[in-house]
């Protein structure tokens, strides 16, 4: 189904600027889908932003909530959305009508950076480039279900699914995790099962030595072991823990056809949006790199200067508690370009201990531009930081690590050590800074209960959120659900059976207060 979208053409003066910007972008070797700009007013922009960039999205109350926040923020003068660009072919980008011409220039240059990134970065390779239509299609399907089954019913199910929308396997688009479902479970003609086929390891030996090289007892033990493994694997469900809970639910949860469709829609959208979360620093850094290059070298006119500088200072401002992705990204790209221009990489450079020599290192390699184009193609934020955040960079930009101090109730600076800082940053980027959760058992206690496992990495789950998420998951799975995690250094399982939340630790079981309980604070 095609979305009926009528884009107003740009007014002539902006169209001229666009042609200019596109020319510069192409000249620098940026490679992007056709880009279509539309000028919208602040409320429209807030609305589009609330829909995640897609005005044709399915109806849901949270978009209304988002909209109210954005538009209030704008009208109170607290925040302003400068640009909004959608990963699609053609790329759609929105300009805020109330912006000055200088801002429009800057935003256009910035948008071309994003478009190039969308098209060329490997992590976006699997995304649907006709997502505008895809979203409109999703919208129509969900609207139809709402007409048929009731708004409340469908919305409540969407709410439940949204709770687990981040439980997908973002790497599965590159790794084949499981074999395609085979239509037939073949049994061998002799009737032997997989269990019968296991064999113990036999070493080659002369017959008189066989008893010693392959002791019968050891062979029997090994065979029994292997049988047990095969058997347990057959009983396990899923056969291996999986991170794609949404897919698992699609296959195994007792869903009505429309529910299955809604779940698959939300899963599609989750996979579509995932790379944007994975590449926030790079994407913004890349776009900032190009808007600053194009603006400062070509497009800026004397009257633009103050406005441009002001805007740049605003977007690149650092903060003590939130690392600005624009700033970090663009500085890293510049650092890489500089290092590869000077040849400041490789073994010889790494092993050089002389600070002055390192600073003045110059081999005139001139590979900078080429390198950053390569980086933008193959990396995501995690690998980007891992590969290119150096000690020098960390010192120059005065990065530090902060942590929550339980006693003072404040976030406090904990360390300025490079290793610590980098480790923390990588941790925050791993799995988009969210806990890593596996589906371990879909038939827990042989009672059809769902058992999830949080792979603990030093930070505890927020218990109240976890409880509510379990309650939502229960609405989909319709049998008790559990998650194993670590609390206060001990393994603990949080469960929800449809009525009560329970916390089970090896030595005790606690009934947790649920959402239905009255909150008493005096």
């Amino acid at each position, binding site marked *: 189904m095609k979305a009926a979208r009528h884009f107003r053409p740009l007014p002539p003066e902006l169209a001229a600027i666009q042609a200019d910007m596109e020319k510069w972008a192409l000249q620098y070797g940026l490679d992007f889908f056709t880009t279509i700009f539309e000028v*919208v007013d602040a*409320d429209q922009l*807030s*609305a589009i932003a*609330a*829909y995640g960039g897609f*005005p044709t999205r399915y109806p*849901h109350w*949270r*978009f*209304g909530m988002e*909209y*109210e926040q954005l538009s209030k923020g704008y009208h109170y003068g607290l925040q302003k959305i400068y640009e909004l660009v959608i990963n699609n072919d053609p790329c759609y980008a929105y300009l805020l009508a109330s912006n000055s011409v200088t801002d429009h220039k800057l935003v256009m240059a910035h948008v071309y950076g994003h478009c190039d990134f969308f098209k060329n970065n490997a992590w976006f390779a699997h995304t649907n480039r006709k997502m505008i239509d895809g979203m409109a299609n999703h919208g129509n399907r969900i609207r139809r279900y709402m007409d048929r089954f009731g*708004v409340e019913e469908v919305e409540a199910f969407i*709410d439940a699914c949204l*709770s*687990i*929308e*981040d439980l997908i396997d973002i790497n599965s688009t590159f790794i084949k995790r499981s074999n395609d479902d085979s239509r037939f479970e073949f049994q061998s003609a002799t009737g032997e099962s997989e269990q019968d086929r296991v064999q113990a390891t036999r070493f080659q030996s002369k017959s008189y030595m066989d008893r010693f090289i392959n002791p019968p007892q050891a062979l029997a033990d090994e065979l029994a072991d292997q049988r047990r493994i095969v058997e347990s694997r057959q009983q396990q469900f899923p056969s291996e823990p999986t991170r794609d809970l949404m897919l698992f639910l699609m296959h195994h949860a007792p869903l009505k056809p429309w529910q299955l469709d809604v779940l698959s829609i939300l899963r599609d959208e989750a996979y579509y949006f995932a790379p944007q979360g994975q590449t926030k620093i790079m994407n913004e850094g890349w776009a900032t790199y190009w808007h600053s290059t194009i603006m400062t070298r070509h497009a800026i006119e004397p009257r633009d200067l103050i406005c441009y500088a002001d805007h740049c200072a605003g977007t690149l401002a650092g*903060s*003590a*508690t*939130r*690392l600005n992705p624009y*700033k*970090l990204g663009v500085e890293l790209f510049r650092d890489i370009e500089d290092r590869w221009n000077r040849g400041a990489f490789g073994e010889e450079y790494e092993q050089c201990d002389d600070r002055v020599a390192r600073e003045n290192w110059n081999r005139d390699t001139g590979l900078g531009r080429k390198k950053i184009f390569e980086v933008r193609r193959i990396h995501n934020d995690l690998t980007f930081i891992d590969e290119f955040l150096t000690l020098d960079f960390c010192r120059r930009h005065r*990065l*530090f690590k*902060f942590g929550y101090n339980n006693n*003072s*109730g*404040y*976030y406090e*600076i*904990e360390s*300025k050590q490079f290793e610590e800082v980098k480790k*923390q940053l990588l941790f*925050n980027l791993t799995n988009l800074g*969210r*806990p890593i959760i596996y589906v371990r058992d879909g038939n827990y206690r042989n009672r059809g209960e769902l058992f999830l496992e949080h792979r603990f990495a*030093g930070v*505890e*789950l927020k*218990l*109240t*959120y976890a*409880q*509510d*998420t379990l309650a*939502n998951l229960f609405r989909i799975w319709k049998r008790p659900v559990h998650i194993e995690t670590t*609390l*206060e250094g001990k393994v603990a399982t949080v469960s929800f059976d449809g009525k009560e939340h329970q*916390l089970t630790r090896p030595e005790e079981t*606690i009934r947790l*207060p*649920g959402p239905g309980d*009255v*909150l*008493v*604070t005096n």
Partner: protein
Amino acid sequence: MFMKIDRDQHRFREIVRGKVRENLRKYITHGEMIGRKGKELVSIPLPQLDVPHFRYGQNGRGGVGQGEGEIGQPVGKGDQEGEGLGSAGGEPGEHVREVELTLAELAQILGDELELPRIQPRGKANIAQEKARYNSIRRVGPETLRHFKRTYIEALRRQVSEGSYDPAHRGRVIPIKEDRRYRSWQNIPVPDANAVIIYMMDVSGSMTDEQKQIVRTEAFWIDTWLKSQYKGLERRYIIHDAVAKEVDESTFYTTRESGGTRISSAYKVCADQIAASFNPSDWNIYCFQFSDGDNWGEDNKSALQILRESILPACNLFCYGQVESPYGSGEYLRALIAAFGDREEKLVTSEIADKSAIIDSIKKFLGKGK
């Protein structure tokens, strides 16, 4: 562009209202959860409005920042929530999003939930008063009311149609007399119903802070509801022990005296107020009296007399709320009932045992629609 967002925004507001309604009893019981924001807005914490996900808590959480600073220097405040197992027993649903509602919406929700009838203003108050509203356009009028935009548009339209518009000089549009448009008014009947609430409270030693908190919470909801029913709403506060005086709102809730109790003294001040400032033919008068029911024995007679002769004939509704207190005898309520029984329909009495009884008390007071 067609704004589909309106539908979603509407739905969001609907959900907010639904949730507030669902939790109304809780909000009423714990009045302090509701924060005032300026004159017309209240903010209400709405747990579970966000879509919950598995997320990290604060324990062991941190990040990377940029800038000057020494180790140990605080960079930001944590959220005000004791997370982790220690507090897991006590407080569910701490991820609290606050939503804003107007007082009118809140009153509407209260009315819906408690099925409160709309109030019929009485007497002369039903007579509508005419008010001028500038909401239309005429071709003639005084220059002071000239509508610049409309005039400009008319002139532009005329010039374009007669071909005298010169695009090279955009904006050069010269209106002639026929182009001029003027603001004009219509008379709109506005019901001129004014209301006054007179709160009376016993502040003698037997009323503790907890009792006062109950009164305060109840008064907030009564205010909210009556405000939605009347355009102008005045409030008067009278405190009394053995003697009574009129005070402002904050004094009303904070004063604590230790003397004896003479309810008649408060009634007297109330009756004087009504006589002096609130002519019953112009005003809808609501009296709310809160006490723990202790009164000086021989005072009952004179109190009931003032009530019967001066206050009840003048007011729409007289509500007596008896707050249960460890010291009060609750005897005054019995005296009221003995004196009036069910015969006086302007008199409503209710016993408020604790905070959770507030909601029923409000329903009883306002359920008559007077």
